[in-house]
């Protein structure tokens, strides 16, 4: 376990240490473009929510480096079990913004058929699990997936994302404990954005870091600068290699900061000082990586601006397309409860069909979380 913060990029974008990851220029530019597109998606979706066009949203401002950098260290065959705050992982795995916004609009094209709140994606073809709201449940699924890969001898690994608050959940404990006992090829990636809604880390746990919790499970724990996309990539790459080599799981802590509200329903000014936000704004992981890319002459200012503009245009266009799609059919309410529809559900569908169309629409608009 390293108590020291692992970091590669300086605040000014200079590479501090010699062990700069061996990423191709292509990969470096990919990392950048995904981070920028995610930021643009989050901004667009928050706008849609403010305008009342979607019901709810969870932005990930400031955490882009932590999840994009780590996801790049995986193979396409590896599986990902995530929480609601890593939208860029899907973009990296080739999911379009339109598909993601179909979920936020809950329209007929939504893979989840409009059954879950916005940002609760499911991307089977990208080996990304269905996201759910209860905190932490996905952590123990990851252990099961990793162990299944090991049983089958597939050579894959599973990476799971969760927050600092998530480390208090029962499933954090069982997920890591089972993986430690079984030596499952699993990577536990905690994005420590220092807040669980209004609860700061020091009220969440008595330990100073999340990384040191790994000692309880006999696995290494690594504390990584989560706003440093190169450090994140490098630490994850090592953990993945370790898992693939049969040496078992690793706990990674990506120390970052939630620059925005917890969700579109949250007001951080109730519980944390504005100065803190100002301070962390200076550490914006995208800006920091752009300083590096500029220093390395991989991009210049105009190119960067063009990438941002293109991303914004992409998201605006995707939203327009997605918004126009119809809602799921009423009949679809009864599908997918079981593999085959049992008689009582067929009866209830008949009951509903017989009812006519006078369905109440008086839902209280103000969702509190």
């Amino acid at each position, binding site marked *: 376990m390293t108590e020291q913060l692992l970091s590669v990029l300086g605040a000014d974008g200079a590479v501090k240490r010699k062990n700069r990851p061996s990423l191709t220029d292509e990969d470096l530019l990919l990392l950048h473009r995904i981070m920028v597109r995610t930021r643009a998606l989050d901004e667009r979706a928050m706008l849609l929510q403010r305008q009342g066009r979607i*019901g*709810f949203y969870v932005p990930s401002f400031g955490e882009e480096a932590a999840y994009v950098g780590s996801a790049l260290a995986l193979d396409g065959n590896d599986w990902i079990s995530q929480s609601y705050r890593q939208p860029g992982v899907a973009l990296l795995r080739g999911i379009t913004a339109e598909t993601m916004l179909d979920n936020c609009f*809950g*329209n007929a094209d*939504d893979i989840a058929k*409009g*059954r*879950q*709140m916005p940002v*609760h994606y499911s991307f089977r073809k990208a080996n990304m699990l269905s996201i*759910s*709201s*209860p*905190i932490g449940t996905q952590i123990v699924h990851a252990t099961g997936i990793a162990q299944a890969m090991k049983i089958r001898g597939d050579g894959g690994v599973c990476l799971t994302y969760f927050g600092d*608050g*998530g480390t*208090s*959940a*029962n499933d954090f404990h069982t997920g890591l404990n089972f993986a430690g006992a079984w030596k499952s090829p699993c990577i536990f990636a905690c994005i420590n954005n220092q807040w*669980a*809604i*209004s*609860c700061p880390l020091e*009220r*969440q*746990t008595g330990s100073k870091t999340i990384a040191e919790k790994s000692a309880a499970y006999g696995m290494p724990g690594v504390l990584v600068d989560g706003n440093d996309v190169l450090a994140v990539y490098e630490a994850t790459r090592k953990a993945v290699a370790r898992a693939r080599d049969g040496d078992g799981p690793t706990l990674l802590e990506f120390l970052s900061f939630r620059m925005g509200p917890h969700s579109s*329903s949250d007001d951080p000014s*109730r*519980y944390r000082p504005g100065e803190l936000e100002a301070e962390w704004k200076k550490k914006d992981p995208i800006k920091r990586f752009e300083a590096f890319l500029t220093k390395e002459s991989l991009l210049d200012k105009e190119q960067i601006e063009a990438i941002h503009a293109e991303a914004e245009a992409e998201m605006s266009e995707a939203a327009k397309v997605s918004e126009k799609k119809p*809602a*799921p059919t*009423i009949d*679809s*309410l*009864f599908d997918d*409860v079981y593999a085959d529809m049992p008689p*009582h*559900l067929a009866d*209830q569908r008949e009951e*509903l069909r017989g*009812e*006519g169309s*006078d*369905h*109440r*629409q*008086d*839902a*209280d*608009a*103000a*969702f*509190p*979380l």
Partner: protein
Amino acid sequence: MSTMTVLQAVTAALEEEMARDDDVVLLGEDIGINGGVFRATDGLAKRFGDDRVIDTPLAESGIVGTAVGMALYGLRPVPEIQFSDFIFPAFDQIVSEMAKMRYRSGGEFACPMVIRTPYGGGIRGGHYHSQSPEAYFAHTPGLVVVVPATPEDTKGLLKSCIRGDDPVIFLEPKRIYRTVKGEVPDDPEFLVPVGKARTARGGDDVTVVAWGAMVHTCLEAAQLAEKQGIEVEVIDVRTILPLDEEALLSSARKTGKVVVAMEATRTCGVASEVSAIIAEKAIDSLQAPIVRITGYDTPFPYTLEHVYMPSAHRVMAGIKKVVEFDF
């Protein structure tokens, strides 16, 4: 008397009971400086301090489990579960420990505590912010399960529960948190007794049984029925466990026609229990099937929430069914 919302009634009840009894403590996620995600505990940390309005780590089993310990020691904890959908990690502590403590210890120990939690649909919360889990608790001996439908009952019942000696699941219908207002007595000794149903509206033709937000939907349906000359009696159950069987049976015996309405999923829901009690104890008075108007046996949806949740229109269809029934 003051006019207040259901949510304000919750806050008022908590504040009065905390002022009355130092042993009353609150604990839960985001309930301190943030005042709870629905603001039910707004201002209470400031007034009573961090020691009595305790922000917890993110673990419902820990919230309930430590509250059980506090209750065993002599405090009167009132834990909040942020959404009732997130109560399941605490299910073992509730079912195995809190509910059974008095019985298994031969009465030596007890858990006088009230788990408050917003429940039900109607706020576009989708799959995991909308469920109605009351049946799980109603099947658990040792628990008291309470659901208020008005600001007055909210305050009076919550205060009674906090003063009572049994563990309570207090389900707050979040759909009416801010939309239902009413007069509430200011007297800090105003209490509403647990275990007693309320006749929300009298009528001789059909009995409609409901609780929580659904009471308002049923009152709406009763108005639709009235236009067709059908006089509906709406029974607001208020306490789901133990049920006020007498109130249910006497209304059923009077009208002979019963509809039970709830938001929850149908199979093995509380509506089935109400139906079974009447089918066992008042069948000779019945002139029609006992009709259940409920959420469907699917998980709770997001986009189609308005289709899933029983509307006044659907309750009215149930009323018609029992009225028009011919043996």
